[in-house]
């Protein structure tokens, strides 16, 4: 009885829990949460009617359409090309594999403006790729194709890096088992490999899409930024800001934020659903 007078405090194994958690929360609040909240509050000031008017203005709608179309096209392209890339990087051994693997991170590391400038130089009418393409009647710079190209470049690593670890962890015995049961290579891929990597693939593609929506630096150089044609939403928000139209900028930014949040939630939902049956084997 008397021994229970002083409550027993369980000791944590790792020290510094309060300090590290506190620092982390402070950081999250300052760097991520407060700007987002400020944006939402700024948007709330506008009022629903004005907000709706800004968002449904023809130029805004056109910019959103360009952004979504280009991001969707870039994502579809990256979904397949990223899958192929991850497959090659995990399934085959070849000289230079490690270099190729490292190159995959360049879009992460490279300042996007640099990417935009070099893409523009390469694909402009007298660039290395642009000259033959123009000869063939394909123009990329200052067109929607250019926007797609820039978005593709900056978002490819998201897909590759999402699939790669899952593919690496895939037990080769699964495919061997399918083989002994009579499955042909395509059936093995479709029924054994694909279901295993599908959640990561979808999640990676979703994040790539979200990233493409917000891509700014790479796009503005190659897009030409013609209103109603190649002007993306992020740029329009920037233009509104330059015009001291803070409400207009905030409204467009809010729409982008909303789409990004929905996509992130979707990505997490996909991962969560997939994890239900797949705890440690």
């Amino acid at each position, binding site marked *: 009885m008397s021994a229970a007078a002083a409550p027993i405090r369980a000791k944590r194994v790792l020290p510094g829990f309060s300090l590290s958690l506190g620092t982390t929360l402070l950081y999250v609040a300052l760097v991520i949460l407060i700007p987002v909240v400020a944006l939402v509050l700024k948007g709330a000031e506008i009022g629903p009617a004005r907000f709706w008017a800004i968002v449904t203005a023809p130029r805004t709608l056109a910019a959103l359409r360009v952004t979504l179309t280009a991001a969707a096209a870039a994502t579809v392209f990256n979904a397949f090309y990223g899958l192929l890339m991850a497959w090659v990087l995990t399934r085959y051994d070849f000289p230079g594999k490690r270099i190729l693997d490292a190159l995959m991170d360049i879009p992460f590391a490279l300042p996007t403006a640099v990417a935009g400038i070099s893409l523009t130089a390469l694909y402009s009418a007298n660039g290395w790729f642009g000259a033959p393409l123009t000869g063939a009647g394909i123009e990329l710079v200052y067109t929607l194709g250019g926007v797609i190209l820039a978005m593709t470049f900056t978002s490819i690593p998201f897909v590759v890096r999402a699939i790669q670890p899952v593919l690496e962890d895939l*037990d080769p*015995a*699964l495919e*061997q*088992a*399918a*083989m*002994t*049961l*009579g*499955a*042909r290579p395509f*059936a093995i891929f479709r*029924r*054994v490999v694909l*279901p*295993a990597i599908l959640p990561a693939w979808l999640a990676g593609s979703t994040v790539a899409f979200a990233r493409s929506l917000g891509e700014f630096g790479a796009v503005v150089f190659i897009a030409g930024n013609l209103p109603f044609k190649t002007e993306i939403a992020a740029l329009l928000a920037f233009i509104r800001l330059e015009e001291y139209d803070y409400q207009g900028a905030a409204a467009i930014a809010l729409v982008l934020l909303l789409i990004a949040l929905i996509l992130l939630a979707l990505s997490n939902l996909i991962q969560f659903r997939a994890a239900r*049956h*797949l*705890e*440690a*084997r």
Partner: protein
Amino acid sequence: MSIVIEHMTKSFDGTAVLRGIDLTIESGELVALLGPSGSGKTTLLKIIAGLEWPNSGGLVVHGADWLHLAAQDRRIGFVFQHYALFPHMSVRDNIAFGLTVRPRAQRPGKAVIAAKVDRLLEFLQIAHLGDRYPAQLSGGQRQRVALGRALAIEPTVLLLDEPFGALDAAVRRDLRAWLREVHDETGSTTIFVTHDQEEAFELADRVVVMGEGRIEQIGNADQIHDHPASPFVARFMGATIELPVTLQAGRAEAPGLDSSRLPRRALPDGPATLFLRPADVTPLADPAGRWQITHRTSNGALLRLDLTDGTSRFGIDLPRRAPEAQGLVPGARVNLRPEAGTIFPGPRTLPPQAAATEFPRKEKSL
């Protein structure tokens, strides 16, 4: 469905894994490939399955040359050590996989497949688990599902790679008896790989002992236990005591050794090595004996005595209540009377790990 393997060799990156395997397995037989890790037993099994390809040799199953058949066309049931169940499929879908994956023309109807899966679930005693996912099953249940999946295609040959290796002892014994029943009821030709002697001898009609990419001996438990064909098999079967002896008129002689219980062997006179199991040796207390007891431990039923003659040391086992056990305390001296043992000609000058190089049929030891 007889399986004929001829002169099969296989190497990985220049390391020989199979060094010429000749083996015939009769239809309906249950055969164990027994050996330590690295003996090539799993590689041999995978070659039969079509998951590995040999460098040379022949593999003829029921008259058909299987080396020209892809794994998909061999119709084998393969059971993996770690089950390799498809994690995103329910137990039913796992078992049905081999049927649902067939080309449309050969695929049975949905109802036929469902009925077959039901029968298999019943037969494997996992009827209540049909709708679960592999992650929700215990190891033993998973291995039953894996076997069900393999059996669903009515395989010509059933191949199991260390099927019970990842399970605990009680489940292992349980599944062992059950596998024997499955084999007897399906009448399939079954080959399984194991490094567990008890498992091999209890389950198999014939045991193939492999070491270093070669077949060391083929036989049943008694044959291999009493008459190991090579020093490798003798060691693998638990003969941990190796005594240098001199053969004279077929009898092994060495100081302090009473060989009266060993039968005479038709071997030429000269140096030889006597292989003994720790339990096949009776210590005879003798104040002038060759060996001195250094340690004595008991597990209640058995005593283990560690002996040394100054140059080598080994342990022997005897029942704690045996009359000979009286007075055997550390420091006492004994002579030894082997009750059973195996003699291989040739001196033994190196410790067992390296000694193998001297014996014929062995290039190096594990």
